[in-house]
């Protein structure tokens, strides 16, 4: 057996002798087989170019256990509103006592538990769905995942407050590997927001491999906020799959702040006309952090709109990669797609890779894309200094202004304030390793 094979099997071995997986054995068997055949993505894997998986495979892990969750953690997360619905998972397991359902006409909870009660709807969305983008990590999830969050907002239900999905990694001793599979279903004309956050309560290394499938039925409106707040001794691979039907609107905003290696995959596809998908993101890697945003939007229907805006501040020796793929099928006329990736490099060693990729087969479309990578505007800095503003303050103001067009779109006030608090402190010189600590609390 070669060295690579040992690495590839590594995560499968952790599950030896385990039971109670999310997917039934007959489906799992295929996934396990596929997993064992799939290579770890390397620099030659087109969709994963520039992704360095070494930090993930350099560690040995054990599976995280279900632990007693300390509810006082909520007090330190200032965006958290107690009157909202919440699903709490620790090390990938549903925590019933920490989760709470506040609204009558929605269904939230553990995906594993929901299988009995919502058999039809889950079958419709989960079991019949083949993995269209079978990369190493998503297949690993298919094969061995045990639980995750389930949200079903039925037709015409509109929620005022957000629904939280909060993941906590907590080690009792040693490095933790955790997986979760989340399913979010928006019924016809439903409207709600999800705030999906990841935190780490311990300082051992952890790797969280997560898949979230989101389905929007006709005219549904969903806002999805993803926050990567696991500490700097964490690796995180997230796969978000979005399916949008006629007239629906999906807006997401991903903030990547912490983590030694973070990969955010967004696969989005339209299944009806006049739908809109808007993906935004901010990343601020420092030191040796690596942030990788991969987006793949498939315009298979006409008259749909997609937008991507990703902005990064890259400090020290950090590396960022942005890949934005847009596919427009021959029949997807009147597609309106825009993409922008902007990076500011704060040091001579920081690196940003930006890879816009458009594949267009229709002839009546508007597809704009732009990518800029540079330093802070020296003319603007000089101008500010001639008004007496110190260099440090001027830089902070310019960086804040740079990120503002992304963060200003966060419609949930308390969460926006939390993000801005972290950004402001980061720009004032605090490093992610201190800010990613859950105990950092703006309001207490």
């Amino acid at each position, binding site marked *: 057996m070669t060295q690579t094979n040992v690495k590839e099997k590594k995560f499968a071995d952790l599950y030896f002798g385990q039971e109670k997986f999310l997917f039934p054995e007959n489906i799992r068997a295929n996934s396990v087989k596929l997993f064992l055949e799939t290579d770890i993505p390397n620099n030659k894997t087109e969709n994963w170019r520039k992704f360095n998986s070494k930090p993930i495979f350099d560690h040995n892990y054990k599976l995280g256990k279900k632990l007693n969750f300390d509810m006082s953690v909520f007090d330190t997360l200032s965006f958290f509103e107690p009157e909202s619905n919440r699903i709490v998972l620790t090390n990938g397991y549903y925590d019933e006592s920490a989760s709470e359902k506040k609204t009558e006409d929605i269904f939230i909870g553990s995906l594993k538990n929901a299988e009995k009660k919502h058999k039809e709807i889950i079958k419709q969305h989960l079991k019949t769905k083949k993995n269209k983008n079978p990369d190493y990590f998503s297949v690993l999830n298919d094969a061995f995942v045990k639980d995750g969050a389930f949200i079903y907002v039925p037709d015409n239900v509109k929620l005022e407050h957000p629904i939280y999905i909060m993941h906590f990694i907590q080690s009792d001793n040693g490095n933790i590997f955790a997986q979760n599979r989340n399913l979010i279903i928006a019924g016809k004309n439903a409207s709600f927001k999800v705030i999906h956050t990841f935190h780490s309560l311990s300082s051992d290394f952890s790797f969280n491999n997560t898949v979230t499938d989101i389905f929007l039925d006709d005219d549904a409106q969903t806002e999805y906020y993803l926050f990567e707040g696991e500490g700097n001794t964490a690796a995180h691979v997230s796969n978000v799959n979005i399916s949008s039907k006629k007239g629906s609107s999906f807006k997401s905003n991903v903030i990547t702040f912490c983590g030694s290696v973070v990969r955010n995959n967004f696969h989005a596809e339209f299944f009806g006309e006049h739908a809109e998908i808007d993906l935004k993101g901010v990343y601020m890697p420092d030191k040796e952090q690596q942030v990788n945003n991969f987006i793949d939007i498939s315009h298979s229907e006409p008259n749909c709109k997609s937008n991507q805006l990703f902005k990064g501040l890259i400090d020290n020796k950090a590396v960022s990669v942005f890949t934005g793929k847009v596919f427009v099928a021959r029949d997807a006329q009147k597609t309106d797609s825009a993409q922008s990736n902007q990076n500011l490099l704060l040091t001579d060693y920081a690196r940003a890779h930006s890879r816009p990729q458009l594949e267009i087969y229709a002839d009546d479309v508007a597809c704009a894309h732009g990518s800029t990578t540079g330093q802070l505007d020296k003319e603007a800095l000089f101008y500010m200094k001639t008004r007496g503003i110190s260099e440090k303050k001027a830089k902070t*103001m310019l960086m804040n202004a740079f990120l503002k067009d992304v963060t200003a779109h966060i419609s949930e006030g308390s969460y926006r304030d939390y993000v801005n608090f972290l950004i402001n402190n980061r720009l004032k010189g605090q490093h992610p390793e201190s800010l990613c600590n859950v105990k950092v609390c703006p309001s207490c």
Partner: protein
Amino acid sequence: MASVLAGRDLFKVTGGKVDFKGKNLLNLNPEERSREGIFLAFQYPVEIPGVSITNFMRAAVDEQRKHKGLDPMKASEFLRYMKEKKALVELDAKLEGRAVNEGFSGGEKKKNEVFQMAMLEPDLAILDETDSGLDIDALKVVANGVNKLKTKDNATIVITHYQRLLDYIVPDIIHVLYNGRIVKTGGRELALDLEKYGYDEIKKEADKQF
């Protein structure tokens, strides 16, 4: 010259010193020069997307006050102060929420420079070709602002190629600069002479002399 005084690092000063209120300006960086009371109105004001004029001025005024040992202004006090200065230089109220100079017309940019000058109350203001690219109405507003800001304790250097601006900002002293030297100095009547006879005579005389 204006850029050297304000401290732009594009230029290297090879000799001499700049004495300002007993300090050598060349030893100070741009922000320190500003806090000492130097103000440069840019020929081409820079656009700063995402930074509102209010926030920009707030930061600048706070730093100036800190230098003088004063506490930052309260928000309400600051807004009142800003309103007062805006009226003085006839700056359009709708501009204040906008990002600094972003999408401003040439005239708006120059008005914004004079507005900042009013806010910061410098001892020495340098207006670098402030008349370039201005129509006559904007020119009047800018000139008016400069005139109103004149006190017995401050000074303004206006750098221009044209007499036109001097119809509105009446100078006390005129220096003619040629090849990096002051070749002639006079009162306000010098400008009228120059307008009439051109620079040729002065140039010839200067070439002979140096």
